[in-house]
């Protein structure tokens, strides 16, 4: 696997629309395309020679990206893409005579009485649960060493998914969770407002025997405590036969 193989020499530059005057000196460069969106001007092109590079860098607050074939954008000094090229419609800068900025609209807002929601968080938490597919889990358990399996309890859903609890988590693809007070929060998210899981349980009206697992969309699903069984090769084989 080569992880950054899909780099091309395509580039894109993005800067605030307030600096539109800088486009003037670029008008005669062949093949440049332009797009105005959300108060930003985007420019893209194929070959970036030194002279053009210098001209682009002179535009205030501009960010230069290389464009992957997938449309992902990587900043010059980085290797992990951090943006995506807007879809367009792109116009040839050559043809683009008059600069018209679209009026900024207000984002639609639903007036819903939202009590608790999930928001992205970069504060790390412990990881103690994993959701994966039944097939992956079953293959793992019947071939994993006993010492690993002993640590886990699992619950199966009707959609052939499994929620596994216990650490260290099985090294399997899937979504990892942080479980606290019977609430499973997807890793990378936190409750907002951050009232703590004990209070959140009350808000969610969960009885003591019920656990809840959140999705990234902020919805949750109830799981009876009793649906967890101790993991063992026999238990997994038996579930499979059912």
């Amino acid at each position, binding site marked *: 696997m080569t992880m950054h193989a899909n780099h091309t020499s395509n580039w894109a530059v993005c800067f605030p629309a307030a600096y539109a005057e800088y486009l003037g000196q670029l008008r005669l460069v062949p093949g440049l395309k332009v797009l105005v969106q959300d108060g930003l001007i985007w420019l893209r092109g194929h070959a970036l020679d030194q002279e053009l590079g210098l001209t682009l860098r002179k535009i205030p607050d501009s960010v230069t990206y290389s464009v992957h074939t997938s449309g992902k954008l990587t900043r010059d000094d980085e290797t992990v893409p951090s943006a995506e090229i807007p879809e367009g419609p792109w116009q040839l800068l050559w043809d683009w005579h008059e600069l018209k900025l679209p009026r900024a609209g207000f984002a639609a807002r639903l007036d819903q009485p939202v009590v608790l929601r999930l928001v992205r968080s970069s504060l790390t938490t412990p990881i103690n649960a994993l959701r994966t597919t039944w097939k992956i889990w079953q293959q793992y358990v019947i*071939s*994993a*060493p*006993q*010492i690993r399996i002993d640590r886990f309890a699992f619950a199966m859903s009707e959609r052939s998914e499994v929620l596994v609890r216990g650490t*260290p988590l099985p*090294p399997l693809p899937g979504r990892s969770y942080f479980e606290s007070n019977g609430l499973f929060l997807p890793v990378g998210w936190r409750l907002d407002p951050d009232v703590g899981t004990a209070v959140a349980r009350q808000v969610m009206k969960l009885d003591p025997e019920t656990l809840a697992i959140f999705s990234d969309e902020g919805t949750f699903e109830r799981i009876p405590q009793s649906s967890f069984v101790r993991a063992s*090769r026999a238990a997994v*084989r038996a579930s499979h036969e059912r």
Partner: protein
Amino acid sequence: MTIVKFVESLIFDGRVRVSTIVDAKGKIQSPSPAEIAETLTRLRRYEELYRPELLGNPPGLLDDGLYWGALMTYRACSFLAHRDVDSKTIVDSLQKTVPPVVSPAVCYSVDFTCRFLPDLIRLAKAVSVEDPLVGCLLTLARQWPLSSVGVPDLGGVDISAFVRDDCLLALYVDRVIASGDASRLDHPLVLSRVRTAIGLHSELAPGLAQVLASISESE
């Protein structure tokens, strides 16, 4: 308690009561053919419940090995509880009838009851280290390395009889990790499997992980 009841309690409760198996003249009593048949029937039934807990497919059961393992365990438990048996009788009854051909199937069949050997040796040593029973059990432990993981001071053991059987090797490795028996890491295949099982998580077996960390990977 007859051997039939004995195996049932051993497998299900892990607690057994044993009566003496030596008659008034000091001779070992042998189970009747009917008892043997019943013991085998039960052992096979219990093994069906045990089998799904193993990794992969264990080898087929062999009556000889299955019965012999149960008989040795039965006798050893009896000698442990009834201390009035002379050492010659103990040695004769535990050491003279070892199954001749050792294959994965024999190892597995014997192991079904002999897997309790480490506990038995611990109990016997607690009574008296000098006891001839301890010596006999240690000999059994060397002969049946699959069943004796965790027994200290055995020295090197030969696991060639079953090491090529995937299921038994996995069972063996599970036991090495559970007991933390570093003396069993001398076989390269076992070493590699233990390393694989522990992976990054030395907390799963701290003692073994320390040993592994001191052995370079190429070894």
